[in-house]
């Protein structure tokens, strides 16, 4: 089966708005099954917003098809229950809840939470289960956030900068786990650490100012290094001095 | 008065009366009573013409909503549009500043339901209602005979009204040799067990309460639970009809049997023409009579007399009311010149429960205004 012909997630002309700003201006993107797709782009181009649009966390229009069904109009919790794990860029752990409670909250009804996997990857979380998540260090919070995303057996993982704030050793472990899970799970991730991106990416998508300008197999990243770099160094019209 | 405003002259063909009351708010019942009594009184005294000496009595009503700021604004605007009389206020915190306005602006203030002491003796233009406080009925409720060995415990709200009531009570019972203790509690009290236990420990012969409004029922329940009513006789006020049942129930069978209350107006007692008229007027207007209906009637009586005797001169109108006596549905009423305290009859009643479960006061004894006269403590200073 050719993954390109059977994408797990497909965005077609998706527009998203924040306040009065038009952030995504017609994003079209395919995320092939059982592959890692890395979304690249400068700060402020709309990578995070794209993920949030898939989850229904921002006002959006256009078509979003997940595993064959249109989810562009569904509510966030219904979308997520279809089998999506989300690791936000801000960590967004619940500071007032303990580490254990954070994980308990992430358990999906009817599913089998994979505590063994999570604790093996981040043993620290087990030791700190009774502590408030708000007392964790930045990196430890990132671990918790990743753990919440990995806890359930999801079909799709949306991961926004998974290695941000992690020590190099841990980055390595995370990469290995993601490689392992990629066999059964589909991953769409944003990653600024180029080493990580290179290692994991099967597919890439490059964003400039709210649209996808490049979307294809990662071999292009190596071959077309110049093109990709050219896109990536385009000053964003939103945050750049040019506006 | 500092200013002789043109307002008092008004239109020479009409007399303007401004009624300010809590049409909405805590004292809405009193406001409705007052209005009914006033209208009935005016109708009766002017034989339905609503004119005195050829001058029309024009009454306007305003809602103070229980707020002094609103009440004062209404008063000022009524004064500005030529009112000669202001009346109708139940809430003391509005009555006092409005009475001040009346003095400043050469307008006559007539009593509404407010029981504040500060109104008596304030000014030649201000007429107070002294019935609810400082009444001689207090000792009468305690019974005849030698009382010198008796003890009384007083419970009241810890502000001017409750404090004043105790002061006047004490002034009446000290000469009789009755020893008394006072228990003043914050108006916001909700649990009365502590005070009930204290009173129980004192084992007084009488327990006297001037409590009104929120907390009344808890107070009675607590006194009863501690068995105060088993050993002490209750004496106190009855205010609106709505509270009869709560008080009766709380007192319990034994407590209610012994309890004696004072009442400002006992419907049906005087049986005079005025009362008959008020009763039929109320029936016509589908109004349930209460203790403040005569307050309105009394205001009407004073207005009509003042206009007859004083013409258009405010000072003359006011002085015509000094020591004026009239017949009201309550009986004979006098406006005492020295301090402008309104002397009215008082009634001692018991509370009884009818077969249908409703509670009604039953007359024990009526006291005419003369017997109710208290010493003048705060005479009006006249230049």
């Amino acid at each position: 089966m050719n993954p390109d012909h059977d994408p797990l997630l497909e965005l077609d002309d998706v527009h998203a708005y924040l306040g009065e700003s038009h952030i995504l201006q017609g994003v079209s993107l395919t995320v092939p099954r059982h592959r890692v797709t890395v979304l690249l782009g400068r700060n402020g181009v709309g990578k995070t917003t794209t993920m949030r649009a898939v989850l229904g966390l921002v006002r959006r229009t256009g078509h979003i098809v997940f595993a064959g069904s249109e989810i562009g109009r569904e509510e966030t919790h219904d979308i997520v229950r279809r089998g999506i794990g989300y690791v936000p860029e801000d960590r967004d752990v619940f500071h007032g809840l303990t580490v254990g409670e954070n994980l308990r909250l992430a358990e999906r009804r009817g599913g089998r939470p994979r505590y063994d996997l999570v604790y093996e990857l981040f043993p620290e979380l087990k030791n700190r289960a009774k502590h408030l998540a708000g007392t964790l260090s930045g990196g430890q919070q990132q671990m918790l956030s990743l753990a919440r995303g990995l806890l359930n057996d999801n079909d799709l993982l949306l991961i926004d900068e998974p290695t941000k704030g992690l020590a190099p050793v841990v980055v390595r472990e995370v990469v290995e786990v993601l490689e392992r899970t990629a066999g059964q799970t589909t991953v769409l991730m944003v990653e600024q650490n180029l080493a990580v991106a290179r290692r994991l990416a099967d597919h890439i998508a490059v964003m400039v100012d709210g649209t996808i300008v490049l979307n294809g197999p990662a071999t292009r990243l190596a071959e077309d290094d110049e093109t990709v770099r050219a896109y990536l160094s385009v000053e964003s019209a939103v945050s750049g001095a040019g506006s | 008065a500092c200013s002789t405003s043109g307002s008092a002259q008004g239109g020479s063909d009409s007399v303007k009366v401004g009624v300010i009351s809590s049409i909405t708010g805590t004292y809405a019942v009193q406001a409705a009573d007052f209005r009914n009594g006033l209208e009935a009184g005016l109708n009766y005294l002017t034989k339905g013409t609503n004119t005195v000496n050829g001058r029309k009595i024009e009454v306007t009503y305003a809602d103070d909503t229980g707020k002094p700021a609103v009440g004062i604004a209404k008063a000022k605007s009524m004064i500005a549009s030529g009112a000669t009389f202001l009346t109708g206020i139940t809430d003391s915190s509005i009555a006092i500043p409005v009475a001040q306005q009346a003095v400043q602006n050469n307008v006559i203030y007539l009593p509404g339901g407010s029981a504040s002491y500060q109104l008596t003796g304030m000014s030649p233009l201000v007429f107070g209602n002294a019935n609810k406080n400082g009444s001689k009925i207090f000792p009468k409720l305690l019974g005849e005979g030698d009382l010198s060995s008796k003890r009384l415990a007083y419970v009241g709200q810890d502000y001017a009204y409750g404090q004043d009531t105790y002061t006047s009570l004490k002034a009446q019972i000290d000469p009789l040799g009755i020893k008394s203790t006072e228990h003043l509690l914050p108006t916001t009290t909700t649990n009365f067990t502590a005070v009930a236990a204290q009173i129980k420990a004192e084992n007084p012969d009488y327990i006297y309460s001037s409590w009104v409004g929120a907390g009344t029922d808890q107070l009675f329940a607590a006194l009863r639970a501690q068995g105060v009513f088993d050993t002490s006789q209750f004496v106190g006020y009855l205010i609106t009809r709505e509270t009869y049942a709560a008080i009766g129930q709380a007192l319990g069978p034994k407590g209610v049997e012994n309890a004696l209350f004072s009442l400002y107006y006992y419907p049906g007692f005087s049986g005079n023409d005025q009362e008959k008229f008020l009763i039929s007027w109320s029936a016509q207007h589908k109004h349930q009579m209460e203790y403040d209906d005569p307050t309105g009637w009394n205001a009407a009586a004073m207005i009509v007399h003042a206009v007859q005797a004083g013409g258009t001169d405010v000072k003359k109108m006011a002085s015509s009311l000094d020591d004026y006596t009239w017949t009201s549905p309550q009986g004979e009423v006098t406006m005492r010149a020295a301090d402008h305290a309104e002397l009215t009859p008082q009634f001692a009643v018991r509370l009884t429960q009818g077969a249908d479960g409703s509670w009604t006061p039953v007359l024990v004894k009526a006291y005419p205004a003369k017997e109710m006269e208290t010493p003048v403590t705060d005479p009006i200073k006249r230049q």
Partner: protein
Amino acid sequence: MTVRKLVIPLVLAGGVALLACAPYLAVPGLGVLPDTVGSIGSLQVLGTAYVIAALAITYDLLMGYTGLVSFGHGMFFALGSYGFVMLLAFTSAGFWTAAAVAVGITVVAAVIVNAVALRASLIAYSMVTLAAAQLMAIAIGQNYLGSGGVDGVTIPFEKLPAGLVGIVNTKHVYWLALGLLVLTFVLARWLTTTRIGHVWRAIRENELRAEVMGFTTYTYKLVVALIASTLAGVAGVVYAILLGAADPGETSLSFSIGLVIMLILGGRGRVWGALLGAVVYTLLQQRLPAITSSAGVAALPDAIRIPLAQPQLLLGVVFILFVLFLPGGLAGVVEKAIRAVRRGGSGPPGDAAADGEFAAAVRVPASAEPTR
């Protein structure tokens, strides 16, 4: 730019001049006011609205600009009122002495209460001020120092300057109230544009960040609290003159909540929003009963009449609708309208804020804030 700089003060000055002429205007009050604009009743209502508006502006400095939600701001207003009236009534102090001492008392109380309350965190600050105000309410309710309990205390009017006594002089009291409002407004407007005003807003946004930046936030908060409380005390004195009395209602929780409501109606964090909200609130409160007790309402069937006959109910409903549908308050509506008009004229939408102006009422989504 320069045109704006000239036009706005001119318009404001013109507005004030017009309001100052109100006592001589025989324009109909159109139901908003009890009578014609220049009538005594209307002047009294307007005067009350002005004083309350001045108070609301001082509260906006605290709550709208600095983010300090006090539930006891009425306390300082009441201290001004009670201090002034009680000094006049029970001491030989004259008018000016009483006024000055009353404001002095307010300042001392404000220093004590705020120095203590500001040590606590934000929500605790609300509660400590609530506790302080309740203690004062209890003290007044229980007639401490002759404060009169529920009756309040009235001004012995012989001690007032002759020009403030009697309804013929209502216009003087009106001007006094207007003067207070103009003074407070100008002062607040100016304060909010200064550097200190910017620090207050920074504290509202993120206090710890401001502290780490080098602002001793405690001192800044104390300064704004003192300014607001002192002005509230002055407003209290004027209110006492207007009312002829000190009124225990000023100490109640609902009075202080009323201030919050005014800011919401008008739009918090904007001086003229507070002004607008307070005026509308006061007018509604004074005028709704007239509507609800009108003959038209009395004739309605019970199910409609009962709700309509309760001004508090209508006020509550109006207020709920505002919170729900006009979160920027009246000021927000006006600003939106102005922006729409300007946009229709020229310039791209994003260009409205000039360099150095605060961003116009940005609503940062909750998720954008760091979870603390």
